[in-house]
């Protein structure tokens, strides 16, 4: 046995190295190459090309729009997602599995269909059109519908992150807090919320990234009106059609940079949560 101790491990190492190389190549080609390509194309005219397009009003507007959408959008899935997660993790009721499956619907359904559904409900002749029109609220081809479809698409992120954490936590710490004189609200705020905060932030960061990058549903409901309902992704689409490549790549690069920042945040939150669950 000890005469040829390296024979099998050496082959194992080789296979392991091969698998590692394959994985890294895959990541490099599919993920890194496009990013490098965008950076390269956007900046090939030299760094001085950057300020020009970014000073244009329509581009500034297009970059600012998704920030508003994300800001409004993220609060709703964060709060309601937390409530749904609490119900799914803690309560038992008839049809719970169905609810749990429906929550994932936005993952499965194409955003274009989500946009179409919003048009059916709020567009011309839609079920709720008369109600909002009578109050002078423009839903379709305006910010409300863009926020609405983005919220729909972001629903599962917080829920899917928070439910497993809540399930692992159980209710014992909350019970302990109650016997020590805490009200249900105090127990939630002082015990449960801190214990799930990183999972919650992780879910929120994922939703933000998704909200910033959303295009399909927004394309359908916004009408992509320049300087009004045009988001950064929609601008990139238009820029490429109008052969304004440099400006398009620059906006894409800005979007990618924001996403990388969000990604860094996500990594931090994920680590903190993993560390705290170990306790």
């Amino acid at each position, binding site marked *: 046995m000890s005469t040829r101790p390296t024979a099998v491990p050496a082959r194992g190492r080789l296979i392991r190295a091969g698998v590692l190389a394959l994985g890294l190549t895959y990541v490099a080609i599919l993920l890194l190459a496009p990013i490098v390509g965008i950076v390269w194309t956007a900046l090939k005219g030299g760094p001085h090309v950057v300020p020009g397009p970014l000073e244009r009003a329509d581009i500034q507007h297009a970059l600012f729009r998704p920030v508003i959408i994300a800001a409004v959008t993220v609060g709703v899935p964060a709060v309601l997602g937390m409530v749904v997660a609490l119900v799914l993790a803690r309560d038992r009721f008839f049809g719970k599995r169905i609810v749990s499956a429906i929550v994932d619907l936005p993952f499965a359904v194409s955003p274009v269909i989500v946009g179409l559904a919003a048009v059916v409900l709020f567009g011309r002749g839609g079920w709720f059109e008369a109600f909002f029109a009578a109050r002078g609220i423009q839903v379709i081809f305006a910010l409300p519908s863009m926020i609405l479809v983005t919220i729909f698409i972001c629903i599962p992120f917080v829920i899917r992150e928070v439910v497993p954490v809540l399930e692992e936590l159980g209710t*014992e*710490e909350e*019970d*302990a*807090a*109650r*016997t*020590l*004189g*805490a*009200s249900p609200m*105090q127990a939630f705020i*002082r*015990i449960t919320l*801190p*214990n799930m905060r990183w999972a919650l932030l992780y879910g929120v960061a994922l939703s933000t990234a998704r909200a910033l990058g959303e295009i399909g549903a927004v394309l359908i409901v916004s009408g992509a009106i320049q300087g009004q309902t045009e988001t950064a992704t929609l601008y990139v689409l238009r820029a490429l059609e109008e052969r304004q490549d440099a400006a398009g790549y620059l906006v894409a690069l800005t979007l990618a940079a924001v996403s990388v920042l969000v990604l860094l945040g996500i990594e931090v939150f994920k680590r903190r949560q993993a560390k*705290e669950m*170990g*306790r």
Partner: protein
Amino acid sequence: MSQGIVVEGLDKRFGSFNAVRNVSFQAVDGEITALLGPSGSGKSTVLRMIAGLERPDTGRVWVQGEEQTWKTPQERRLGFVFQHYALFRHLTVRENVAFGLSVRRAPREEQRARVDELLELVGLAGFTGRYPDQLSGGQRQRVALARALAPRPRVLLLDEPFGALDARVRLELRRWLDELHRELGVTSLLVTHDQDEALELANQVIVMHQGEVEQAGTPDDIYNRPGTPFVAGFVGASNVLRGSVWERHLHFGRSAVAGAYHLDDGGEAYAYVRPHDVRLTNQAGDLSFPVTIDRRTNLGWMSKLTLRLQDGQVLVAEVPNEDLDGVSFARPVFVDLRHAKVFGTGPAAAPAEAELASV
């Protein structure tokens, strides 16, 4: 009313499972009362209903003469110690112990003094800044106890407090809890499945089985005067021997034990005998009978013997080795059963079998 805890007619169902059935008992002020039973006997559910963590379907709860049945846990002010500690993992030891004081908005100085006092009491004064994951199991449970005691609860409820610890730490903490209780004298209700723990710590033991109280009494009552076959079988590992009643004795084949005075002749009955109540001799006497020895294991200070009666029933005996000095295994061996408890019905699983046999 000097009663610490009184529960009356508690009932609790979980779906179709009747977890607790008509449970009533009292826990005397200033003493430790143990709720003893196998897992699933409903003892933890009773404790959680006293704490207000579960709502009883029917029945009432009083603590120190004050009715608690409809109060929320935070109104009851009872200390609760959980089997898995339930420490707040994101808070330090100090913040954990201070929690009960800070939610009641006690002044900061008072909180600090009380936490120091309690950590001193549980022997963890140097651990204030640590997080629960930096402590051993025994230390965690001591922090949990300090946390429960900090708001000066009227009674202390302990749910299998040593259940998650290894055997050595268990024993150590048991002794320590005993001393702590002597010092503080806080009325305590201890849920446990470990009969040694119950008998050692408690002034009063309530044995539960399948959601019902089987027997309540002093450790001496429970151990020496079991009221039901279940108690006889659960408290102290028992041998169960089946025989028939004849002239106030229980007969197994041609052997017999005394103690069936309350049963009619000709009926079937069961004798419960603890392994250490089996005495071995070489002399045949009035109430001793011959056995064959299947197996003998020497554990140092005592021997464990597997004996077979003439009718084939097996009896386990644990005999101190010095008592075996005068016994020769080369000659016929007889046993003498002391403190046999005879019941007309068998253990939970046996009645069906007994019914079949009597048809």
